């Protein structure tokens, strides 16, 4: 049996298809402006990688910001629940999850697979991936490279601003003074880590700590967070898929709860056409 989990984030959309034992395939794509139709496309891509059709998928769970816009999902589950399940499957000893997304960041406290506490910032860009995007733009460096570059710094610049806009200004000022890009980036990662940490410590950071989301792919940010936290953190090999993975795991659990007849009915009644579901012309 195959199970699918979709995580429609504000910046990136992820799909995981797994069977009873392992993850079979993953697809990761930028969400862009039209996420309703992307869900179909990305699902089809994942299926074609495995030479499967939609009929082969027993159960589909959707999560993330855009989860209500997945007409073919059998169930919608919150991001926190999915992240928790995904991390728990990968690293059962994790007690604190720090999820760093493009437009928000979250702190999730778990105990024995149950949610204990939760904190989120989606109000201030400085504690999110957006902060790093803005600065990498200004420096003319690719976002995927800034982490590595920052590790080459020998003397991190002190970035005093708490605000993304003012930090951008400070960056320009430092550049005009001749400060190296590595040093500036090191300082910027420290500032970002600082904002994220001051949010997460409200739920008390306890071992083991895992970092997920796009921010986890940035080695400079992970190191900066480790410094603030005071002990090493766990970074999943593919940090973006923990939500979709959790969704797929929940999909597998759901099939055990319902009978075969109901399962078959669900599969037959799945609505694959995003456009007809909304009964309107596509927006793009």
């Amino acid at each position: 049996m195959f199970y699918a989990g979709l995580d429609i984030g504000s910046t990136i959309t992820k799909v995981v298809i797994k069977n009873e034992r392992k993850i079979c395939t993953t697809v990761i794509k930028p969400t862009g402006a039209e996420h309703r139709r992307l869900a179909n496309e990305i699902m089809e891509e994942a299926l074609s990688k495995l030479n499967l059709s939609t009929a082969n998928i027993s159960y589909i769970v959707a999560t993330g910001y855009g989860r209500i816009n997945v007409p073919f999902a059998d169930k919608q589950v919150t991001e926190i629940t999915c992240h928790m399940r995904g991390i728990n499957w990968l690293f059962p000893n994790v007690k604190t999850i720090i999820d760093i997304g493009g437009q928000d960041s979250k702190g999730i406290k778990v105990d024995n697979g149950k949610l204990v506490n939760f904190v989120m910032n989606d109000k201030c860009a400085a504690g999110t991936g957006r902060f790093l995007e803005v600065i990498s733009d200004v420096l003319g460096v690719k976002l995927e490279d800034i982490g590595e570059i920052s590790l080459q710094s020998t003397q991190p610049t002190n970035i005093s601003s708490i605000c993304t806009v003012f930090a951008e200004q400070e960056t320009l000022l430092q550049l005009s003074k001749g400060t190296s890009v590595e040093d500036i980036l090191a300082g910027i990662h420290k500032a970002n880590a600082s904002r994220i940490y001051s949010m997460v410590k409200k739920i008390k950071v306890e071992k083991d700590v895992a970092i997920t989301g796009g921010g986890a792919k940035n080695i400079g940010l992970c190191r900066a967070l480790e410094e603030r936290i005071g002990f090493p953190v766990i970074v999943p090999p593919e940090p973006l898929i923990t939500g979709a993975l959790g969704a797929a795991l929940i999909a597998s659990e759901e099939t055990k709860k319902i009978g075969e007849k109901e399962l078959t009915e669900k599969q037959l009644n799945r609505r694959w056409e995003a456009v007809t579901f909304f009964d309107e012309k596509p927006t793009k």
Partner: protein
Amino acid sequence: MSFIVGLDIGSALSKAVIMQDGTLLSSGISPSEGNFLSAINSVLQEALGKTKLAMSDIDLIGACGLGASFIPHSFHKISEILCQSRGTSYLLPTVRTLIEIGNQSSRIIKITRQGKVADSLVSDKCAAGSGRILQIVAKVLKVDLKDMGQLSLKSTQPVKFTTGCAVFLETEAISRVAEGASKENIIAGLHQALTARIAAMAHRMGLEEDCVITGGGAENSGLVKIMEEKLGKTLLVPDNPLITGAIGAALIVTEKKVNLKKEENHAIETGCHC
């Protein structure tokens, strides 16, 4: 017969005034544009040029602002809050509450009858609570900052922004443009968002009349109008709301010099150097 220079070197604009015996002789304003030294020299030249004085005629310099350390002459550094209060008092002596909307900060200052600071509240950590957010949206809409006020007054339905962060607001503004919202409505919505922030600060301080608004924000007629409506108070705008800090710097440094002189004379007369 001393000629005093007052400087206010801000992140967006550098301002200079020349005063003599408590009278304003001239002023100069220039964009700082990341090069403070150049802006300082420019405004000094402008102010001096209007009075036919030279730098050598200047007895004292008082200065405030982010870029003050770049001043290439000896000067006395004074806090911005003190300068703004004194300067505004000079132009509008009835001021009791000053709302200053600068490029990187917003301040609400309570001022006594003597022009001294009774209390103050400053927001300088977040771009969305200052003039900076106006600049950001002006860039998105491709309008001149100085036209924002007039444009907003033509708004029929101000856009409601859902975020309090300048970075996310910029994204929202771009989305609204893509959806076809008019510039006028977007700017009006922005003014409302900024006003709500200031109003929250004002609520904590309490507004005592006369209320005066200064800084770059005061030149934005649309912003001032929305603020008056939201705060329920008339907001007086000085003739030149940008130079209040520089005026205050000049006045305060003059007083300092007078006090220093008094101490000197006292020491000479009594032979006491305490």
